[in-house]
C-alpha cells in the first residue's frame, strides 16, 4: 500500500516536472525577446528539474542517493541562475547599443 502511494507520488511529481520543461521549451521558442525567453528557460531548470528530483528521490534506495540527487539539483540551480544573469547582462548591453564583444561576454 505504502509502495503504491510512493509510486503514485513519484508519477505525479515527475509529471509536474515535465509540464514545467514543456512550458519552458514552448516559451523559449515562442517568447519575443531574450529576457522573457530566459524567464521561460530558468523555470524549466529550477522547477522542472526540482520536481523530477523530488519524484526520483522517493524511489532512491538510500539517503546517500537522495543526497546526490539533491546536490545535482542545487548545482544545476546555481549554474542556471548564473548563466541566466550573464546572458541577460550581455543582452542588456547589446540593447543599449554597441555590439557585445568577446570581452563583454567574459565580463558581467
Amino acid at each position, binding site marked *: 500500500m505504502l509502495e503504491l502511494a510512493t509510486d503514485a507520488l513519484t508519477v505525479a511529481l515527475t509529471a509536474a516536472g515535465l509540464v514545467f520543461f514543456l512550458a519552458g521549451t514552448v516559451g523559449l521558442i515562442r517568447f519575443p525577446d531574450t529576457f522573457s525567453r530566459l524567464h521561460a528557460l530558468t523555470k524549466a531548470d529550477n522547477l522542472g528539474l526540482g520536481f523530477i528530483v523530488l519524484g526520483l528521490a522517493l524511489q532512491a534506495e538510500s539517503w546517500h542517493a537522495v543526497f546526490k540527487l539533491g546536490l545535482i539539483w542545487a*548545482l544545476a540551480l*546555481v*549554474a542556471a*541562475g*548564473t548563466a541566466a*544573469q*550573464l546572458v541577460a547582462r550581455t543582452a542588456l548591453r547589446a540593447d543599449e547599443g554597441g555590439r557585445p564583444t*568577446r*570581452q563583454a561576454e*567574459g*565580463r*558581467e
Partner: protein
Amino acid sequence: MSGTVFDIVLCALILGAALAAVSGRDPFAAVVFFVVYGVFIATAWLRLDAVNVALAEAAIGAGLTGVLLLGAVGRLARLRETAPPARAAGPRLLAALAAGGTTLLLGWVFLTLPEPAGLHAEVGANLAAAGSENAVTAVLLNFRAWDTLLESIVLLAALIGIWALSPDAAWGGRPGMTQRTRAGGVLAQFGRVLPPIGLMVGVYLVWAGTKQPGGAFQGGTVLAAVALLAMMAGRIAPPRVSAPGLRLALILGPAVFLAVGLAALAAGRFLWLPPEHAYALILGIEAALTVSIAATLALMVIGPPQEAP
C-alpha cells in the same frame, strides 16, 4: 519493452542532432547541435553500460570540444569582418562525398565482419594481476598502456600547436585575453562557490577510477573546468606560458608514464607492470596524468597568449 522504445527514440534523436549539426549554414547553430549530439551519445553509452565512455564523451566530447569549437566560431566571425568568405561548391561537394563514402565503408565493414567474441574473458582472467578492479582502467593503464601514453603525448602536441599561433610579441605572456569581472558580481561569486565542489568531484573521479568508472581523463577534464571557471571569474590569473612550474605540470604525466615504462624495460618489457606493484604504479601514473591533462585542457581552451607580457 519501454527500454526498446527509449533506445529507438534515442537513436532517432542522435541521428537528428547529427544531421542538424552538419547540414546547418550557421556555424554557431552547428556547434550547439554538436554539443546536443554529444549529450545524446553519452546517454547511449550509458544504455550500453559503458559508464567510463559516457563520462569521457560528456566531459570531453560534448563539453570541452564544444567550448573549443565555440571559440573557433568566435574567431571565424572576427575574421569574416575583414575578409568575405569564399563560397566554392567544389570543396564542399568533395568533403560531403568523402564523409559519405567513409560512412558507407564503415557500415559495410560493420555488417560484413564476423561477430567478435570480445576480449571480456581474457581481460577478466588477467584482472587479478592488473592492479585495478575496473576492467577499463586495467586495459587503459596496463594491457594497452601504449595507447594511453601516446594519447597523453598527443594532447601535449596539440597544445604546442595552439601556442604556435601566438603573436611574436605576446610569447611568454599570459594565455588568452584579459578577463575582467565586476567585483562581487554573479560570476565572481559563482567562481568562489563552485571550485571547492569541482575539485572534490575531479579528485574523486581519479581516485574512484581504480575500482569504478572514472580516471585521469574524466577527472582531469573536471579539474580543467574548475581552473577555467576560476580564471574567467577573475579568482586566479592564468600562469605565463613561460612559467617553469606550468611547463613541469604539462609534462609530468607523460614523463612519469615514460619513466615507469623505461624502468620496466630494464626488467625486460617496455610498459610492463609487475603485478605486486601494479596498483601503486597505476595510481601514481593516473595522479601525474591528471595534473597534466587538467593543465593541458584548460590551456587549450584559453588559447595562445594575445598580449605582450
